[in-house]
Protein backbone atom coordinates (compact mmCIF):
# COMPACT_ATOMS: atom_id res chain seq x y z
CA UNK A 1 0.00 0.00 0.00
CA UNK A 2 1.34 3.41 -0.90
CA UNK A 3 1.15 6.55 1.21
CA UNK A 4 -1.63 8.15 -0.79
CA UNK A 5 -3.96 5.21 -0.26
CA UNK A 6 -2.92 4.83 3.35
CA UNK A 7 -3.43 8.47 4.31
CA UNK A 8 -6.95 8.57 2.91
CA UNK A 9 -7.83 5.63 5.16
CA UNK A 10 -6.14 6.75 8.36
CA UNK A 11 -9.27 8.33 9.83
CA UNK A 12 -11.29 5.21 9.20
CA UNK A 13 -8.42 3.10 10.57
CA UNK A 14 -8.44 5.12 13.78
CA UNK A 15 -12.24 4.74 14.05
CA UNK A 16 -12.17 1.00 13.38
CA UNK A 17 -14.30 1.46 10.29
CA UNK A 18 -12.16 -0.57 7.88
CA UNK A 19 -12.37 -4.24 7.03
CA UNK A 20 -9.99 -6.58 8.80
CA UNK A 21 -7.80 -6.94 5.75
CA UNK A 22 -7.55 -3.17 5.25
CA UNK A 23 -6.65 -2.69 8.90
CA UNK A 24 -3.77 -5.16 8.51
CA UNK A 25 -2.49 -3.45 5.36
CA UNK A 26 -2.54 -0.03 7.02
CA UNK A 27 -0.81 -1.36 10.12
CA UNK A 28 1.96 -2.88 8.01
CA UNK A 29 2.38 0.37 6.14
CA UNK A 30 2.58 2.39 9.34
CA UNK A 31 5.39 0.27 10.73
CA UNK A 32 7.56 1.39 7.80
CA UNK A 33 6.30 4.92 7.13
CA UNK A 34 7.16 7.73 9.51
CA UNK A 35 5.18 10.38 7.59
CA UNK A 36 1.95 8.40 7.75
CA UNK A 37 2.57 7.55 11.40
CA UNK A 38 2.90 11.28 12.11
CA UNK A 39 -0.30 11.94 10.19
CA UNK A 40 -2.09 9.31 12.26
CA UNK A 41 -0.83 10.91 15.48
CA UNK A 42 -2.16 14.29 14.33
CA UNK A 43 -5.58 12.82 13.52
CA UNK A 44 -5.63 11.07 16.88
CA UNK A 45 -4.89 14.34 18.66
CA UNK A 46 -7.69 16.17 16.87
CA UNK A 47 -10.14 13.38 17.62
CA UNK A 48 -9.17 13.37 21.29
CA UNK A 49 -9.46 17.16 21.58
CA UNK A 50 -12.95 17.08 20.14
CA UNK A 51 -14.09 14.18 22.28
CA UNK A 52 -12.80 15.97 25.41
CA UNK A 53 -14.85 19.08 24.72
CA UNK A 54 -17.11 19.64 27.67
CA UNK A 55 -20.78 19.48 26.73
CA UNK A 56 -22.35 22.85 26.15
CA UNK A 57 -24.94 23.55 28.83
CA UNK A 58 -28.30 25.08 27.95
CA UNK A 59 -30.14 27.63 30.05
CA UNK A 60 -32.24 26.51 33.03
CA UNK A 61 -35.56 27.08 31.31
CA UNK A 62 -34.51 25.41 28.07
CA UNK A 63 -36.49 22.21 28.61
CA UNK A 64 -39.57 24.16 29.71
CA UNK A 65 -39.34 26.25 26.54
CA UNK A 66 -39.28 23.15 24.40
CA UNK A 67 -42.39 21.80 26.13
CA UNK A 68 -44.09 25.16 25.70
CA UNK A 69 -43.38 24.99 21.98
CA UNK A 70 -44.75 21.45 21.81
CA UNK A 71 -47.87 22.52 23.73
CA UNK A 72 -48.48 25.20 21.11
CA UNK A 73 -48.15 22.64 18.34
CA UNK A 74 -50.47 20.20 20.13
CA UNK A 75 -53.18 22.76 20.76
CA UNK A 76 -53.09 23.95 17.15
CA UNK A 77 -52.87 20.49 15.67
CA UNK A 78 -55.65 18.74 17.60
CA UNK A 79 -58.38 20.96 16.13
CA UNK A 80 -57.06 20.65 12.59
CA UNK A 81 -56.54 16.93 12.69
CA UNK A 82 -59.92 16.38 14.27
CA UNK A 83 -61.58 18.46 11.57
CA UNK A 84 -59.79 16.70 8.73
CA UNK A 85 -60.04 13.23 10.23
CA UNK A 86 -63.72 13.75 10.86
CA UNK A 87 -64.35 14.58 7.26
CA UNK A 88 -62.04 11.87 6.01
CA UNK A 89 -63.88 9.31 8.10
CA UNK A 90 -67.20 10.72 7.05
CA UNK A 91 -66.31 10.32 3.38
CA UNK A 92 -64.97 6.85 4.00
CA UNK A 93 -68.16 5.85 5.81
CA UNK A 94 -70.30 7.34 3.07
CA UNK A 95 -68.47 5.43 0.35
CA UNK A 96 -68.56 2.28 2.38
CA UNK A 97 -72.29 2.55 2.87
CA UNK A 98 -72.86 3.34 -0.80
CA UNK A 99 -70.67 0.41 -1.79
CA UNK A 100 -72.54 -1.95 0.50
CA UNK A 101 -75.89 -0.72 -0.67
CA UNK A 102 -74.89 -1.17 -4.32
CA UNK A 103 -73.86 -4.74 -3.58
CA UNK A 104 -77.16 -5.37 -1.87
CA UNK A 105 -78.99 -3.98 -4.85
CA UNK A 106 -77.05 -6.20 -7.21
CA UNK A 107 -77.77 -9.22 -5.06
CA UNK A 108 -81.39 -8.22 -4.96
CA UNK A 109 -81.66 -8.01 -8.71
CA UNK A 110 -79.96 -11.37 -8.99
CA UNK A 111 -82.36 -12.77 -6.45
CA UNK A 112 -85.28 -11.45 -8.43
CA UNK A 113 -83.90 -13.06 -11.50
CA UNK A 114 -83.56 -16.36 -9.77
CA UNK A 115 -86.73 -16.40 -7.75
CA UNK A 116 -89.18 -14.43 -9.79
CA UNK A 117 -91.97 -16.65 -10.80
CA UNK A 118 -95.17 -16.01 -12.60
CA UNK A 119 -96.05 -16.43 -16.19
CA UNK A 120 -93.19 -15.67 -18.47
CA UNK A 121 -90.72 -15.38 -15.64
CA UNK A 122 -88.13 -12.66 -15.82
CA UNK A 123 -84.68 -12.24 -17.06
CA UNK A 124 -81.88 -9.73 -16.65
CA UNK A 125 -80.20 -8.55 -19.75
CA UNK A 126 -77.26 -6.26 -20.10
CA UNK A 127 -77.36 -4.15 -23.17
CA UNK A 128 -75.26 -1.31 -24.37
CA UNK A 129 -73.65 0.27 -21.37
CA UNK A 130 -72.44 -2.49 -19.10
CA UNK A 131 -73.29 -0.43 -16.07
CA UNK A 132 -76.91 -0.56 -16.88
CA UNK A 133 -78.96 -3.52 -15.92
CA UNK A 134 -82.19 -4.21 -17.72
CA UNK A 135 -84.86 -5.98 -15.86
CA UNK A 136 -87.22 -7.52 -18.32
CA UNK A 137 -90.33 -9.09 -16.95
CA UNK A 138 -92.50 -10.64 -19.52
CA UNK A 139 -95.18 -10.46 -16.91
CA UNK A 140 -97.21 -7.35 -16.38
CA UNK A 141 -94.85 -6.05 -13.77
CA UNK A 142 -91.83 -4.65 -15.51
CA UNK A 143 -90.96 -4.98 -19.11
CA UNK A 144 -87.75 -3.97 -20.77
CA UNK A 145 -86.34 -0.53 -20.84
CA UNK A 146 -84.60 1.63 -23.30
CA UNK A 147 -80.88 2.15 -23.55
CA UNK A 148 -81.44 5.73 -22.60
CA UNK A 149 -80.56 5.71 -18.95
CA UNK A 150 -81.58 9.30 -18.40
CA UNK A 151 -85.27 8.72 -18.86
CA UNK A 152 -86.25 5.20 -18.09
CA UNK A 153 -89.42 3.94 -19.58
CA UNK A 154 -90.90 0.60 -20.15
CA UNK A 155 -92.83 -1.07 -22.81
CA UNK A 156 -95.16 -3.70 -21.59
CA UNK A 157 -97.47 -5.94 -23.35
CA UNK A 158 -100.26 -3.60 -22.46
CA UNK A 159 -99.16 -0.25 -21.29
CA UNK A 160 -96.09 1.65 -20.22
CA UNK A 161 -94.91 0.92 -16.75
CA UNK A 162 -92.44 2.72 -14.63
CA UNK A 163 -89.12 0.98 -14.40
CA UNK A 164 -86.69 1.46 -11.59
CA UNK A 165 -83.05 0.67 -12.10
CA UNK A 166 -79.86 1.73 -10.40
CA UNK A 167 -79.67 4.59 -12.90
CA UNK A 168 -83.13 5.92 -12.19
CA UNK A 169 -83.09 9.33 -10.55
CA UNK A 170 -84.24 9.08 -6.99
CA UNK A 171 -86.75 11.88 -7.40
CA UNK A 172 -88.57 9.82 -10.03
CA UNK A 173 -88.60 6.75 -7.80
CA UNK A 174 -89.99 8.75 -4.99
CA UNK A 175 -92.69 10.36 -7.07
CA UNK A 176 -93.82 6.98 -8.40
CA UNK A 177 -93.91 5.48 -4.95
CA UNK A 178 -95.89 8.36 -3.58
CA UNK A 179 -98.37 8.36 -6.44
CA UNK A 180 -99.18 4.75 -6.38
CA UNK A 181 -99.85 3.83 -2.83
CA UNK A 182 -98.53 3.61 0.59
CA UNK A 183 -96.28 0.80 1.52
CA UNK A 184 -98.91 -1.44 2.94
CA UNK A 185 -100.66 -1.74 -0.37
CA UNK A 186 -97.54 -2.44 -2.34
CA UNK A 187 -96.01 -5.84 -2.04
CA UNK A 188 -92.45 -5.88 -1.10
CA UNK A 189 -90.67 -3.10 0.64
CA UNK A 190 -89.67 0.29 -0.55
CA UNK A 191 -86.05 1.03 0.19
CA UNK A 192 -83.94 3.83 -1.09
CA UNK A 193 -82.20 3.63 -4.43
CA UNK A 194 -78.65 2.72 -3.60
CA UNK A 195 -77.16 4.57 -6.50
CA UNK A 196 -78.86 7.83 -5.70
CA UNK A 197 -79.25 7.53 -1.99
CA UNK A 198 -77.36 4.94 0.00
CA UNK A 199 -80.27 4.26 2.25
CA UNK A 200 -83.06 3.39 -0.16
CA UNK A 201 -83.59 0.54 -2.58
CA UNK A 202 -86.68 0.28 -4.66
CA UNK A 203 -87.43 -3.29 -5.36
CA UNK A 204 -88.88 -4.57 -8.57
CA UNK A 205 -92.08 -5.37 -6.76
CA UNK A 206 -92.57 -1.96 -5.35
CA UNK A 207 -94.08 -0.41 -8.43
CA UNK A 208 -96.61 -2.04 -10.54
CA UNK A 209 -100.09 -1.49 -11.75
Amino acid at each position, binding site marked *: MNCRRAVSRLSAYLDG*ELTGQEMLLIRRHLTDCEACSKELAD*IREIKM*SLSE*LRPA*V*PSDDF*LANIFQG*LDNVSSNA*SGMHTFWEMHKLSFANGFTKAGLATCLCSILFLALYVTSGGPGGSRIQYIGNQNMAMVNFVSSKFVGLSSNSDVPYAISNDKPLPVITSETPYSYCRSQCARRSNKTDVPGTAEKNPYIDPHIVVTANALYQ
Partner: protein
Amino acid sequence: MELACSDMNETQGQDRKLFDKLVVKHHKQAYNVAFRMVGNHTDAEDLTQESFIRAFRFFGHYKQDMPFESWFYRIMLNVFIEKLRRKPKAKIWSLDAPIHGVDGDYHMEIPDKTDGPEETLLLRERENRLQTALKAMPDVFRLAVIYADIEGLSYEEVAEATRTNVGTVRSRIFRGRRMLKQILDGMD
Protein backbone atom coordinates in the same frame (compact mmCIF):
# COMPACT_ATOMS: atom_id res chain seq x y z
CA MET B 1 -67.90 10.36 14.46
CA GLU B 2 -67.63 11.41 18.12
CA LEU B 3 -66.05 8.07 18.88
CA ALA B 4 -63.45 8.65 16.13
CA CYS B 5 -62.53 12.06 17.58
CA SER B 6 -61.94 10.70 21.06
CA ASP B 7 -59.87 7.83 19.63
CA MET B 8 -57.65 10.32 17.80
CA ASN B 9 -57.24 12.52 20.83
CA GLU B 10 -56.18 9.49 22.80
CA THR B 11 -53.61 8.52 20.16
CA GLN B 12 -52.27 12.07 20.02
CA GLY B 13 -52.03 12.10 23.79
CA GLN B 14 -50.03 8.87 23.79
CA ASP B 15 -47.74 10.22 21.07
CA ARG B 16 -47.15 13.35 23.06
CA LYS B 17 -46.29 11.42 26.21
CA LEU B 18 -43.83 9.24 24.33
CA PHE B 19 -42.30 12.24 22.61
CA ASP B 20 -41.94 14.11 25.89
CA LYS B 21 -39.93 11.20 27.26
CA LEU B 22 -37.64 11.34 24.23
CA VAL B 23 -37.20 15.09 24.69
CA VAL B 24 -36.20 14.65 28.32
CA LYS B 25 -33.75 11.93 27.36
CA HIS B 26 -32.13 13.68 24.39
CA HIS B 27 -32.46 17.43 24.85
CA LYS B 28 -29.05 18.06 26.40
CA GLN B 29 -27.25 15.99 23.81
CA ALA B 30 -29.22 17.68 21.04
CA TYR B 31 -28.35 21.10 22.46
CA ASN B 32 -24.66 20.18 22.56
CA VAL B 33 -24.69 19.20 18.89
CA ALA B 34 -26.60 22.34 17.99
CA PHE B 35 -24.11 24.48 19.91
CA ARG B 36 -21.19 22.94 18.06
CA MET B 37 -23.03 23.55 14.79
CA VAL B 38 -23.86 27.21 15.33
CA GLY B 39 -21.30 28.32 17.90
CA ASN B 40 -23.45 30.32 20.29
CA HIS B 41 -26.05 29.62 22.97
CA THR B 42 -28.96 31.62 21.62
CA ASP B 43 -28.87 30.10 18.16
CA ALA B 44 -28.24 26.65 19.62
CA GLU B 45 -31.36 26.86 21.77
CA ASP B 46 -33.42 28.13 18.84
CA LEU B 47 -32.13 25.41 16.58
CA THR B 48 -32.78 22.67 19.12
CA GLN B 49 -36.24 23.87 20.01
CA GLU B 50 -37.28 24.25 16.40
CA SER B 51 -35.91 20.81 15.60
CA PHE B 52 -37.88 19.18 18.41
CA ILE B 53 -41.04 20.93 17.30
CA ARG B 54 -40.58 19.77 13.75
CA ALA B 55 -39.75 16.28 14.91
CA PHE B 56 -42.98 16.23 16.89
CA ARG B 57 -44.97 17.32 13.86
CA PHE B 58 -43.52 14.41 11.90
CA PHE B 59 -43.50 11.94 14.76
CA GLY B 60 -46.10 9.87 12.95
CA HIS B 61 -43.52 9.24 10.23
CA TYR B 62 -40.81 8.05 12.59
CA LYS B 63 -40.03 4.39 12.07
CA GLN B 64 -38.62 2.81 15.17
CA ASP B 65 -36.16 0.64 13.27
CA MET B 66 -33.96 3.76 13.06
CA PRO B 67 -32.40 5.13 16.26
CA PHE B 68 -34.20 8.26 17.38
CA GLU B 69 -30.94 10.23 17.43
CA SER B 70 -30.24 9.51 13.75
CA TRP B 71 -33.76 10.50 12.77
CA PHE B 72 -33.67 13.61 14.94
CA TYR B 73 -30.25 14.74 13.73
CA ARG B 74 -31.53 14.45 10.19
CA ILE B 75 -34.32 16.84 11.05
CA MET B 76 -31.93 19.15 12.90
CA LEU B 77 -29.69 19.24 9.85
CA ASN B 78 -32.62 20.30 7.65
CA VAL B 79 -33.60 23.02 10.11
CA PHE B 80 -29.99 24.19 10.30
CA ILE B 81 -29.70 24.42 6.51
CA GLU B 82 -32.98 26.34 6.25
CA LYS B 83 -31.83 28.78 8.91
CA LEU B 84 -28.55 29.29 7.07
CA ARG B 85 -30.41 30.10 3.88
CA ARG B 86 -32.63 32.62 5.64
CA LYS B 87 -29.87 34.28 7.59
CA PRO B 88 -27.46 36.66 5.85
CA LYS B 89 -23.87 35.45 6.06
CA ALA B 90 -22.18 36.88 9.12
CA LYS B 91 -18.62 38.04 8.82
CA ILE B 92 -16.29 36.20 11.13
CA TRP B 93 -14.00 38.47 13.09
CA SER B 94 -10.87 37.08 14.56
CA LEU B 95 -10.53 37.82 18.25
CA ASP B 96 -6.78 38.07 17.80
CA ALA B 97 -6.73 40.32 14.76
CA PRO B 98 -5.59 43.86 15.54
CA ILE B 99 -8.13 46.63 15.36
CA HIS B 100 -6.78 49.54 13.36
CA GLY B 101 -7.34 52.72 15.27
CA VAL B 102 -6.39 56.32 14.65
CA ASP B 103 -3.54 56.23 17.13
CA GLY B 104 -2.36 52.74 16.32
CA ASP B 105 -3.41 49.13 16.48
CA TYR B 106 -5.31 47.71 19.39
CA HIS B 107 -6.10 44.18 20.36
CA MET B 108 -9.50 43.12 21.53
CA GLU B 109 -9.66 42.10 25.14
CA ILE B 110 -12.50 40.00 26.33
CA PRO B 111 -12.98 40.16 30.08
CA ASP B 112 -13.03 36.78 31.72
CA LYS B 113 -15.83 36.75 34.26
CA THR B 114 -14.80 33.54 35.93
CA ASP B 115 -12.44 33.42 38.87
CA GLY B 116 -11.44 29.78 38.33
CA PRO B 117 -7.96 28.41 38.54
CA GLU B 118 -5.49 28.66 35.72
CA GLU B 119 -6.31 25.18 34.47
CA THR B 120 -9.93 26.11 33.96
CA LEU B 121 -8.88 29.22 32.06
CA LEU B 122 -6.58 27.21 29.83
CA LEU B 123 -9.27 24.64 29.25
CA ARG B 124 -11.75 27.33 28.37
CA GLU B 125 -9.29 28.93 25.99
CA ARG B 126 -8.62 25.64 24.28
CA GLU B 127 -12.34 24.99 23.91
CA ASN B 128 -12.92 28.43 22.47
CA ARG B 129 -10.13 27.88 19.94
CA LEU B 130 -11.61 24.57 18.91
CA GLN B 131 -15.09 26.01 18.60
CA THR B 132 -13.80 28.93 16.54
CA ALA B 133 -11.94 26.52 14.26
CA LEU B 134 -15.05 24.35 13.93
CA LYS B 135 -17.11 27.34 12.97
CA ALA B 136 -14.58 28.29 10.29
CA MET B 137 -15.03 24.94 8.51
CA PRO B 138 -17.51 24.30 5.71
CA ASP B 139 -20.78 22.94 7.07
CA VAL B 140 -20.62 19.42 5.63
CA PHE B 141 -17.19 18.75 7.13
CA ARG B 142 -18.02 20.41 10.44
CA LEU B 143 -21.17 18.29 10.80
CA ALA B 144 -19.37 15.06 9.98
CA VAL B 145 -16.71 15.78 12.60
CA ILE B 146 -19.28 16.84 15.21
CA TYR B 147 -21.35 13.68 14.75
CA ALA B 148 -18.37 11.34 14.71
CA ASP B 149 -15.96 12.87 17.23
CA ILE B 150 -18.20 14.80 19.62
CA GLU B 151 -21.31 12.63 19.50
CA GLY B 152 -19.49 9.36 18.89
CA LEU B 153 -21.77 8.15 16.11
CA SER B 154 -20.60 5.34 13.86
CA TYR B 155 -20.02 6.05 10.18
CA GLU B 156 -23.30 4.33 9.38
CA GLU B 157 -25.19 6.46 11.89
CA VAL B 158 -23.60 9.59 10.50
CA ALA B 159 -24.61 8.47 7.00
CA GLU B 160 -28.22 8.02 8.17
CA ALA B 161 -28.28 11.38 9.89
CA THR B 162 -26.86 13.21 6.88
CA ARG B 163 -28.65 11.15 4.22
CA THR B 164 -25.41 10.06 2.55
CA ASN B 165 -23.45 6.83 2.32
CA VAL B 166 -20.59 5.47 4.39
CA GLY B 167 -18.02 6.22 1.71
CA THR B 168 -18.96 9.91 1.67
CA VAL B 169 -18.93 10.02 5.47
CA ARG B 170 -15.49 8.48 5.56
CA SER B 171 -14.17 11.08 3.13
CA ARG B 172 -15.80 14.00 4.98
CA ILE B 173 -14.47 12.91 8.36
CA PHE B 174 -10.98 12.46 6.98
CA ARG B 175 -10.98 15.83 5.24
CA GLY B 176 -12.77 17.52 8.13
CA ARG B 177 -10.17 16.49 10.70
CA ARG B 178 -7.37 17.51 8.37
CA MET B 179 -9.01 20.87 7.78
CA LEU B 180 -9.51 21.41 11.50
CA LYS B 181 -5.83 20.75 12.17
CA GLN B 182 -4.79 23.20 9.45
CA ILE B 183 -7.08 25.90 10.86
CA LEU B 184 -5.78 25.34 14.40
CA ASP B 185 -2.19 25.41 13.20
CA GLY B 186 -2.95 28.67 11.38
CA MET B 187 -4.32 30.20 14.57
CA ASP B 188 -1.07 29.62 16.47
